[in-house]
């Protein structure tokens, strides 16, 4: 994931540098922060069930095959799907309000899980 992050930053850097070098610098800082925030939020809000061996991971393994239950390894999560599940719940996963997971927090999670 780190490698992918670096790749993404590089690409954005490349695009932004074409526009404004200063903007590119700010963007790198906020991407790192977003990644750290996303991880922090995942640990607090998601890991209780979605950590390796957790209840949700086990249920997802049943649907997707052994060793395929971890959210953080998924390549197929679309941003809108993540937002929908977090805000509406899914089966026995309860929804999370905008107090518990703010819109900003949710976007950081989306970034983390779609990288």
């Amino acid at each position, binding site marked *: 994931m780190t490698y992918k992050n670096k790749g993404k930053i590089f690409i954005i850097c490349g695009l932004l540098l074409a526009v404004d070098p200063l903007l590119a610098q700010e963007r790198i800082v906020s991407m790192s922060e977003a990644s750290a925030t996303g991880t922090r939020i995942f640990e*607090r809000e998601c890991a*209780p*069930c979605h950590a390796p061996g*957790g*209840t949700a991971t*086990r*249920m997802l393994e*049943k649907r997707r095959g052994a060793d395929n239950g971890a959210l953080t390894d998924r390549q197929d999560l679309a941003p809108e799907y993540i937002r929908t599940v977090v*805000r*509406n*719940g899914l*089966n*026995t996963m*309860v*929804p*999370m*309000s*905008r*107090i*518990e997971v*703010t819109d900003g927090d949710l976007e950081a999670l989306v970034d983390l899980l779609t990288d």
Partner: protein
Amino acid sequence: MKLTLPPRLSESQFKSALNEFSQIVGAQWVLNSDEDRDGYLDYFSLDSGESHAPSATIAPVNVSQIQEILKVANAYKLPLWPVSRGKNFGYGAAAPVMPGTVVLDLSRMNQVLDVDEKNGYCLLEPGVGFFDLYHYLQANNIKLWMSVPGNSLGSVAGNALERGAGPQLYGVHTAQICGLEVVLPDGQLVRTGTGAMSNSKTWNLSPYGYGPHWDQMFCQSNYGVVTKMGFWLMPEPEATLSLDISLPDEEDLGWAVDRLHPLRLRKVIEQNVGIRNYIAIASAMSQRDQWYQGEGVLPDDVAAGMRRELDIGWWTFNITLYGYEEVIRANARLIEQALTPKISSEPQWRLWQRGDPIERSGAGIPHTRSMHRLNWWGGRGAHLGFSPTLPPDGEKVQAQYQRARSRFEQYGIDYYGSFALSHRSITNVNQILFNRDDKQMTDNIDLLFRDLVADASELGYSEYRTHLSYMNLVAETFDYNDNVLWRLNEKLKDTLDPNGILAPGKQGIWPAAYRDERQ
């Protein structure tokens, strides 16, 4: 979920009140959309949540914001439903009893204010979750152990104030409360117990204080908003010894209770022993359709096959002893003496000593493994509990099991029962697992629940805690002297909260203005 207005407010008054709330906490922390309301519904309800739909949510971050919010609520006579983290699953989650109530979400107040390792206590805000406290203790290398409930997503304070419980040594959570700070409905800030002395050195050390003891008055009630809770934690023991016993036969429950009870009473075993049936165990590790795809209750031969394959008994219980190694070894021998005449194999105790991996200790480590049970029927799984308390007598317990099981099966639901043995009583947790999308099932469960309540109260066994939809029903069962206790609770309510702004209907306690809502 569409907006249901609070009963006594017009739409413009409601909007005006929300504006005032936004001035206090900031607009970001006042939620008022259809999607936001969905986030505060009872996610495990028998219906779609409309019978307990909130109107909005407001999330303060400190005591003075709460005081200002209550001022506004009093002015508008707007009802509030305080929640700590809102994870009261199976009891209504974050939803209010009365539709249209505004949720007062305290989860932003999530500071661990103090931890005293030497004396074994912490001081917490309501938003501190079990995971939060655990991480705090680990990060600061504090050698105090927690007790955690089966679903540890909730708030430590919220759970204790609701009289939740865990299987570890300090598992009667409400008994570990020592000193509260509470905002009364009129905005006054109170500290209970010895904290009523302004320079008290013992607020979270010495529980009773002087005069009436108020800690329990703010448990399962609507008399105030708790903003700080003193809470006792267990010093890390030198060692633990842990034993799992499987009992092969449904008839084994009675003798197990009779042999364990004297040990529990004499503190050879110091925490409640949970004796669980095989559905409780099987649902934590599998789903029903792995064993049976037919309708109705799991047939006996299928259940027997499942038990064989999972290598579990009809009933299962764990005993974990915590303390000095020579003491717990002595207690372990006493337990063996009591049990070995009736069990087929030699008890295999697992020893943990300081320095061994904590996961093997029996310490309270927050988890959500219990949530797997909700997947038993598949789909949008949910649960509803009925948990009467009865005397710790084997014959009575065996009869209670039979009676409850017949009821479950009458309504086509797999019987899930567990019995938590305390020193002078035993609580029979009946966990009704269901699929929210099966209308026949959800209709049956309402009937099942009502029958379980009626059966229990006929025998003098009372419920210890209940779901929003049944708070009046359960309150009715406390019928001594024409429900005089209920009237006492409401008399106090009217004095403390004349405008009826805090949690109308909680535990059946209705402010004067809403007393008709009881029906």
